[in-house]
């Protein structure tokens, strides 16, 4: 999933989840904070390490990636 939006990260995610309540609840908690088992990368950087969550600037040439934790391997 890689939306290209001219916005700050939070707005980009809000735009993505607008109208998709189920997707929103997977990405953020009741307080609107990104869930700790879902990472968002701006290009190849984790936004948690870049700036306060959701406030990092995004240019139209940037790629946002949502990378959830997955666990399969054995069964």
């Amino acid at each position: 999933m890689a939306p290209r939006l001219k916005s700050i990260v939070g707005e980009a995610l809000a735009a993505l989840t607008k109208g998709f309540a189920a997707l929103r609840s997977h990405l953020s908690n009741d307080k609107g904070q990104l869930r700790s088992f879902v990472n968002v990368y701006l290009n190849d950087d984790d936004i948690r390490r870049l700036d306060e969550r959701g406030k990092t600037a995004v240019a139209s040439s940037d790629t946002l990636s949502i990378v959830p934790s997955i666990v399969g391997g054995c069964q």
Partner: protein
Amino acid sequence: MSTFAAPNATSRATALTKEEIERYSRHLILPEVGVEGQLKLKNARVLLVGAGGLGAPLALYLSAAGVGTLGLVDFDVVERSNLQRQVIHGTGDIGRKKIESAAASIAAINPNVRVERHELALSSENALDIIKNYEIVADGTDNFPTRYLVNDACVLLGKPNVYGSIFRFEGQASVFAAADAPCYRCLYPEPPPPGLVPSCAEGGVLGILPGVVGLIQATEVVKLILGLGESLQGRLLLYDALAMRFRELKLRKDPDCPICGTHRTITKLIDYNQFCGVPQASATPATIAGEIDPVAVKARLDSGEDLQLIDVREPQEYQICHIPQARLIPLGELPKRLHELDRSRPIVVHCKTGGRSAKAADLLRQNGFTGVLNMTGGILAWSDKVDPAVPKY
């Protein structure tokens, strides 16, 4: 990059046999490996957690490559549904312990490899004692409690944790916890609540996928042993099989990480089921009260009772097998399709094993439906107890 000394230095091999020189000749003529590197492989001790999808390619290739000692942790039995991807097991191994089947395959490929069997579930009580005897751990498990357990044990013992994980058509790989590298908790501080992320058993997995991801892990293991190249530490590799694309993300050590950060609050192994919110084995009376056995469902249907049997699985699962009287309403569609259900008639919901239908039953009760029952064990239990002609998948 550092290399790793075997815990028992006195038993280190210092020469290769004639048979080994022939076997490993394509390694030996690589100047980056040579006899010295092959001896490092021969003296290496690697622990594979899980002898399943990821463990299969790991074990096959690491044994062929000449890793001297492979520890296997697994307590499972080979099932037919494993064979689509767990290539270390064959059709004749169905019903056999995976650890025995894997050991036999390894012996067939390379009798020089010593297999150490750990037929158990890795736990907070045994993990440190087992892992301390190995230099590198490759994690191929399939549940969050064990992922966090392996991570924490590796951080506490200072062992590199070669990580791989798969889901449907995608995989992730990295090397955690090696000298100053970020750990799994730096990547994902907390697991998702139980049930939110489907397992491969629920969500499916492309059979080839663990082969690719397991071999990325095997490659990292061999590089760590040989001290070659650029390790995946500090990087998260993402693999998308459908796009046939690899991507790489930066992975940084989290200064606030509770186990490897600057102010560590986890200094010993914890209760990982509790950490991951996994309910304890004993079911609560409330759950049992809302459950019904497949045999009882069959009896009620046969008596002509006007029961609404709702199958909340996905359409592709319904195609594989279904109960004739059942009506398909996938769990994800249920909130929008409540009006299709008759509130005056009893409702029984079922899925594959009972997990999704328990959520469906809760959802119906929250919306004012009464007399809602969840069929215990899902259609797999129906196959076991009512109609063996229904295939299990």
